[in-house]
């Protein structure tokens, strides 16, 4: 029997067995009902337990999910921040639009480049924005046309330059915005290339000017060349005539002429010769620096003796080369002119019965220093600069036939090569002419390298 019923019966009847027998089926039914209730109650409790467990589990899962979602949101937030930061730190102004042309996003640089006021930006009114933008352009219509065209062709990438009325130039780059496999819009990027464009234009202009200058120089050079040729040729022609006629007069009437007459004719012929040499000298001088020859290795040990030979000094003058001379990489005729002029001067002005001329050189890593020394009359210090000037001679031209060009040529040639020329001399003590020539890369390797001697 059900315990509860039993307790109730004990309470009412004193003991379990004193209850009327006719009520036994009733009590049994009640007992079974109680049992049923108990069973049900246990089932319900059981259910509740299970539900409670489930709820707890669900709760836990929910909590977990919420936690994960929060994390994901944070990450997203970080990504967005990163993206925004990136967008804002790019040099380019970026505008994102969808396929209909509605503005989806942009960075500050974009607003700055297009100088869009914050208020206008805030309206989000695309039409206003567009007209604000178009107003600044040189070719607003062209800009618009291109934009329309690109909207019609969403896959096309585009790159062009946009010119502003205020002189700025933006480079515009446009690419479709793709998500997955779908084109969802277009990204425009803008960069200020005003400086670059201006620099390019300047460069083009400078190149053109350079070209023009170069052509002009070419023309001038040719004119000078023609002029020099004409000068030389046409100035010399009458000289020939004068010379020939003078010679004929001497031949035909020489013996009829008094000594004076013959002397005058001799002087005449002398002047003609001088004029001829002057013209040649001027021509040579004008050629320097204009005409460049090929540089070749020139062995001075062979060249200088050749020059000495050519000059055919009188036997009273001895010319010696005091040490081994280098092989230079230079224009042969120029270096010949230098040595020739210096040596011929030394010979021409020699006033001693036993003339001594020496040629020598010393060298450092940077340069060769050559000298031509003589025991001639010497040169007063106050003239040491003057003698290198054009047409300067120290004696009357009738004393020593001299064009006054020789040393000028030497100076010009040496300086053209980056060297220096100077003289060390005192009246009555002979002269030493020095000149330096920087050593060049083309020079053949010369083993002997003397340390420089103080000059």
């Amino acid at each position: 029997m059900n315990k509860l019923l039993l307790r109730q019966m004990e309470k009412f009847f004193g003991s379990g067995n004193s209850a009327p027998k006719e009520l036994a089926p009733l009590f049994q039914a009640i007992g079974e009902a109680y049992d049923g209730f108990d069973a049900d109650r246990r089932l319900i409790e059981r259910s509740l337990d299970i539900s409670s467990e489930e709820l707890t589990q669900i709760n836990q899962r929910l909590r977990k999910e919420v936690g994960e979602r929060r994390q994901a949101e944070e990450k997203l937030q970080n990504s967005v921040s990163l993206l925004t930061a990136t967008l804002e730190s790019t040099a380019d102004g970026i505008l994102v639009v969808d396929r209909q042309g509605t503005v989806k996003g942009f960075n500050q640089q974009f607003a700055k480049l297009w100088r869009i006021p914050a208020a206008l930006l805030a309206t989000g009114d695309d039409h206003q924005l567009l007209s604000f933008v178009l107003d600044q352009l040189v070719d607003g219509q062209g800009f618009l046309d291109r934009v329309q065209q690109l909207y019609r062709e969403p896959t096309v990438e585009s790159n062009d330059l946009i010119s502003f009325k205020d002189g700025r130039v933006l480079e515009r780059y446009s690419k479709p915005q793709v998500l997955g496999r779908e084109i969802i819009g277009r990204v425009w990027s803008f960069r200020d290339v005003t400086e670059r464009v201006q620099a390019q234009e300047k460069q083009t202009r400078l190149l053109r000017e350079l070209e023009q200058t170069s052509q002009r120089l070419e023309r001038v050079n040719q004119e000078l060349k023609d002029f020099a040729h004409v000068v030389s040729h046409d100035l010399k022609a009458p000289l020939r005539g004068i010379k020939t006629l003078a010679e004929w007069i001497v031949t035909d009437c020489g013996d009829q002429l008094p000594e004076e007459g013959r002397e005058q004719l001799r002087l005449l012929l002398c002047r003609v010769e001088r004029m001829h040499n002057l013209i040649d000298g001027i021509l040579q001088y004008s050629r320097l620096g204009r005409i460049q020859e090929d540089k070749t290795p020139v062995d001075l040990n062979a060249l200088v003796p050749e020059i000495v030979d050519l000059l055919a000094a009188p036997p009273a003058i001895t010319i010696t080369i005091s040490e081994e001379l280098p092989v230079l990489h230079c224009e042969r005729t120029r270096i010949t002119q230098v040595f020739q002029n210096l040596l011929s001067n030394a010979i021409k002005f020699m006033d001693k019965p036993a003339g001594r001329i020496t040629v020598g050189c010393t060298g450092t890593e940077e340069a060769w220093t050559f000298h031509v020394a003589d025991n001639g009359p010497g040169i007063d210090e106050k003239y040491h600069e003057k003698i290198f000037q054009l047409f300067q001679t120290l004696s009357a031209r009738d004393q020593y036939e001299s064009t006054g060009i020789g040393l000028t040529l030497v100076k010009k040639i040496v300086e053209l090569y980056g060297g220096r020329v100077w003289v060390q001399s005192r009246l009555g003590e002979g002269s030493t002419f020095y000149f330096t020539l920087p050593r060049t890369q083309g020079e053949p390797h010369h083993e002997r390298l003397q340390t420089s001697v103080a000059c």
Partner: protein
Amino acid sequence: MRDSRPVLLAEDDSIDAMTVRRAFRDLKVTNPLVHAINGEEALAYLKEKTNDRPCLILLDLNMPKMNGIEFLTAVKTDPAFKKIPVVVLTTSSEQRDVVESFRLSVAGYIIKPVDYRNFVEAMRTINMYWTLSELPDEKAEDPNAHNQTLVACGRSS
């Protein structure tokens, strides 16, 4: 020269012309020297039928009105005159002048020596050569003249 016909000298410089004349005299060249001062005059001389056809033409290149090259072009395209040998006598040593002259069939290109003595020697060489060489002549040659010049050159026939 081989025959006694004149030598036509086309030269604008009067002293250069005098030089040729004097050289002829010194060398005892007996050919008359006809002096034209430019190409036009030289051409006019040739065309004038009453003039003696020259046996040789000495031609300067730089002349006014009609220069040497222009004269050469005219003469060498004219069948009446193209046979006359032309020797250029000039101051120009420009290679293009030399080439152009030979393209126009000159029979020598001589640069005028500056020195008179050398000039005479050059004339001597020209005379020796054009005495040695035959010269085209439509008229019959004078056989005596031939022998005389041979003797003058020191040659035995």
